[in-house]
């Protein structure tokens, strides 16, 4: 049986430069043992560099990296107690699935027989019992991905690293496999660091999400915290689509704040807001839409598009053009018609002032 020994991860003032280009200026973070933490961000934000430094495939220009409390900064990848699932899976094409999984076990000194027994267990764990004889080319994308996970898991690493592990799968398989990975992590209790640029994936699998931008941490927190209380317009827009509009905080009452959006008054969680001008992130689904003029924010429909289970609108208002998703598909407001907008209680957050 595979026993995981979860370890913590610490980055202390880590810097990484490639020649004159600094990918990571100064990064410090801590990952608790047994949690699944996602590094999320757009291309070039430094998330993969961070992961590769943790793996030992890149070395920091300055700073320290600790795994399970041990300084591993100078250790090469093969001497660190981590394992990794690559974006391309990086299965050895000339070896069977079983040999792929057994490879690391043999490298760590196990006899061939023992390594193969453990590899069989690993394949069974990911639902591929009996498929050890197949070459990677004879497996489907999802099966290859599971062999890569098994190869990483059988080594019982302190930390499992996953570098965009689902990006080569189709949408349906992606949903299934991400659930499997999460279940496996919770069942075995290992520490996992997961890199992705897909916020849905991050929201679905993570205990904690670290959003990165330009090599720095833009915001870190539980999925819900990031989605509902983005710290900046970048986070608001990156964690699902958002309209960022100007508002005014007119009063704070404990944990709630009264705000004014154009002519409309509304109450939202206060966060760290102070009275005065502020920005508000509004999810496209957090806006209510009524036909004609009424009590609320006046708007005019610029475009509407029917997409089966919802209608997308672009609506011009005094506070800017808003993108709205409306699930009332039996009523479609035509372009150039008047509308009245209101705001729901969820999906709307103050982001700065």
């Amino acid at each position, binding site marked *: 049986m595979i026993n995981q020994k979860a370890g913590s991860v*610490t980055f202390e003032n880590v810097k990484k430069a490639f020649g004159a280009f600094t990918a990571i200026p100064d990064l410090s973070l801590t990952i608790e043992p047994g949690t699944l933490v996602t590094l999320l961000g757009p291309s070039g934000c430094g998330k993969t560099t961070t992961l590769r430094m943790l793996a030992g495939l890149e070395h920091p220009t300055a*700073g320290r990296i600790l795994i399970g409390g041990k300084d591993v900064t100078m250790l*090469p990848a*093969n001497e660190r107690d981590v394992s990794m699932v690559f974006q391309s899976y*990086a299965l050895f094409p000339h070896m069977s699935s079983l040999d792929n999984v057994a*490879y690391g076990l043999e490298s760590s000194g196990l006899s061939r027989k023992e390594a193969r027994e453990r590899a069989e267990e690993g394949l069974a764990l990911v639902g591929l019992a009996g498929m050890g004889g197949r070459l990677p080319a004879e497996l489907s994308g999802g099966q290859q991905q599971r062999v890569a996970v098994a190869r*990483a898991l059988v*080594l019982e690493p302190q930390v499992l690293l996953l570098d965009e592990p689902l990006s080569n799968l189709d949408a349906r398989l992606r949903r299934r496999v991400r659930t499997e990975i999460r279940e496996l992590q919770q069942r075995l209790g290992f520490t996992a660091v997961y890199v992705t640029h897909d916020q849905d994936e991050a929201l679905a699998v993570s205990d904690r999400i670290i959003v990165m931008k330009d090599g720095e941490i833009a915001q870190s927190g539980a999925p819900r915290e990031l989605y509902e209380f983005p710290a900046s317009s970048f986070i608001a827009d990156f964690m699902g689509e958002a309209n960022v509009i100007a508002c005014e905080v007119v009063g704070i009452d404990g944990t709630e704040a009264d705000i004014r959006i154009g002519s409309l008054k509304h109450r939202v969680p206060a966060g760290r807001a102070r009275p005065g001008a502020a920005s508000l992130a509004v999810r496209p689904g957090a806006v209510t839409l009524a036909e004609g003029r009424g009590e609320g924010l006046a708007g005019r429909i610029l475009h509407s598009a029917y997409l089966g289970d919802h209608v997308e609108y672009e609506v011009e208002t005094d506070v800017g053009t808003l993108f709205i998703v409306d699930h009332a598909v039996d009523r479609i407001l035509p372009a150039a018609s008047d509308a009245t907008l209101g705001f729901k209680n969820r999906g709307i957050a103050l982001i700065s002032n």
Partner: protein
Amino acid sequence: MATSDAAVAPAPVGGARWRYRLRLALREPTTVIAVLMAALFAYLIVVPILSILSDAATVQFGDERRTAGETGSVTIYYLYRAFASPVAHDLFWEPLLNTLKVAFGAIAISLSVGGVLAWLIARTDMFGRRWFATALIVPYMLPAWTFALAWTTLFKNRTVGGQPGWFEAIGLSPPDWLAYGQVPITIILALHYTPFVILLFGSALRRFDSQLEDSARILGAPGRVVALQIILPLMRPALLSAVLLIFAKCLGEFGVPYVLGLPVKFDVLATSLYRSIGSRQTGVAGVLAGAIMLIGVLAIMIDAHLAREARRFVTVGSKGAMNRLSRLKSWRWPASGFAAAIFIVSVGMPLLTLALSTVMHQPGSFALSNFTLDYWIGRDLPTVAMRTGILLSPDLWQAAWNTITIVGIASVCSGILGVLTGYVVVRTTIRPLAIFLRQVTFMPYLVPGIAFAAAYLSLFAVQRGPIPGLYGTTLILILALMADQMPYASRAGISAMMQLGKDPEEAAQIVGAGWFRRMTSIVIPIQKGSLVTGILLPFISGIKGLSLFVILAVPATDVLTTFSLRLVDYNYTQAANAVVLIIAGLAYGGTVLAQRITRTNLAEGLGN
């Protein structure tokens, strides 16, 4: 979150930074291997070239009186002698002019013939396109001077001694201009390089999207305008690339002008260089080698520039591209006849002539009594130095053994070094080292073989420091051949490693495998195919190579090519032709075998 209370580890500066980087680099043997390889290639490639260039500018032993300087002191005497003295015309200018004449003549003929054949194969419904696509590139698989020997077998006249050619033997004495010199050299080089045009131009034509032609026509352009403004500009990079590659090849071509130019003193740069080395004019040889290198470098640089230009046309052959064949209708048979005629002239006739000459006592006599197998397997022959048929001659087997060992060892070494170069270029963290390795291994490509051999002779002829004089040993041949093959070996290695990417090896590293285990269980097994190709292809080109060996081999280290050339010099026509046929057979068989093993085809897709 970006900062924490943890103790700050400052970025190392100055010397500390370099010590830190060194510690990182030494964690993996990749960098150490890269440094060792850089040193090896610097010695095997850069130093010989510098050595021969310095020969051109320093007083050589024995020239003290003529140059009025001490041995080793700087002089412009050799530059003067090669470029401006009364003998400069014979040493440099006329050979240069002759080189240009045969090169441009060969280019003109091969472009005309190859261009038509490429179009017939790639874009028309000519009969037997598939067969011709492979058959017409056979000349490229054979050594060029195979055809030179076939030519002399047919056209040799009384100007030189020895056995006459067939025409002479039947009383039709060919004039000198037809038997030797510019005309036959040009024709033979043209026939040898026509496959180049077929391959380069044919594949460009194949990629050409006929929808472009259609859209130009729909926009109202007449046929002539379409050809001039659409097809020709898009084909231009491939055409010019073929021109420059043929030019660079002609520049270093030695065997053909040696066999066909020598009798009428028709020198090209390569033979003039050979003569200078033979007459121990080391300084002048340095100047000539330098001039050949310079022209070679210029040609390749222009080609590289054009290749960059050609990349701007990458939209050609995009998704949905069409390759519609032109219908030849009543011209189908004549077109096939033309292709067949070229095949007969460039492959059938030369090989048949050579083969027949080896089984005939008297040239040109087809009486049954004139045929014999003596030259292959006879004993007690009346010739002075060749008492047995070639297959019974120990010299042949010695030369064959030398070929296999010298070319074999060099190919295996360069194949392995090629894969290692690819590995360290892709994996080292020290970029300047990767760039140096990439460029230094490419350098011999810019230097024609004969100039490179001269460079080796310049460096290794005498003892230098701890390195003893290597002239006359097999080691100098192995080293020179190895270095000469590095451009192909390293390119193959680098592109294979690029294709493989870092992932499989990093995956092995992550699961705990050390460097040696990763190399033996992951990198080399995955790269097995490219390693085999990287060894086999240089082996085949080494077997038929002449210009490198002709300078560096001595009778004891004769390979098949130099052995056959010696037989030519002794006028043992039948024996020389037999050896050349053996080489041609080996080269052709090896190419076919290599294509089988690697499941590739030089003419891939051309006739499909």
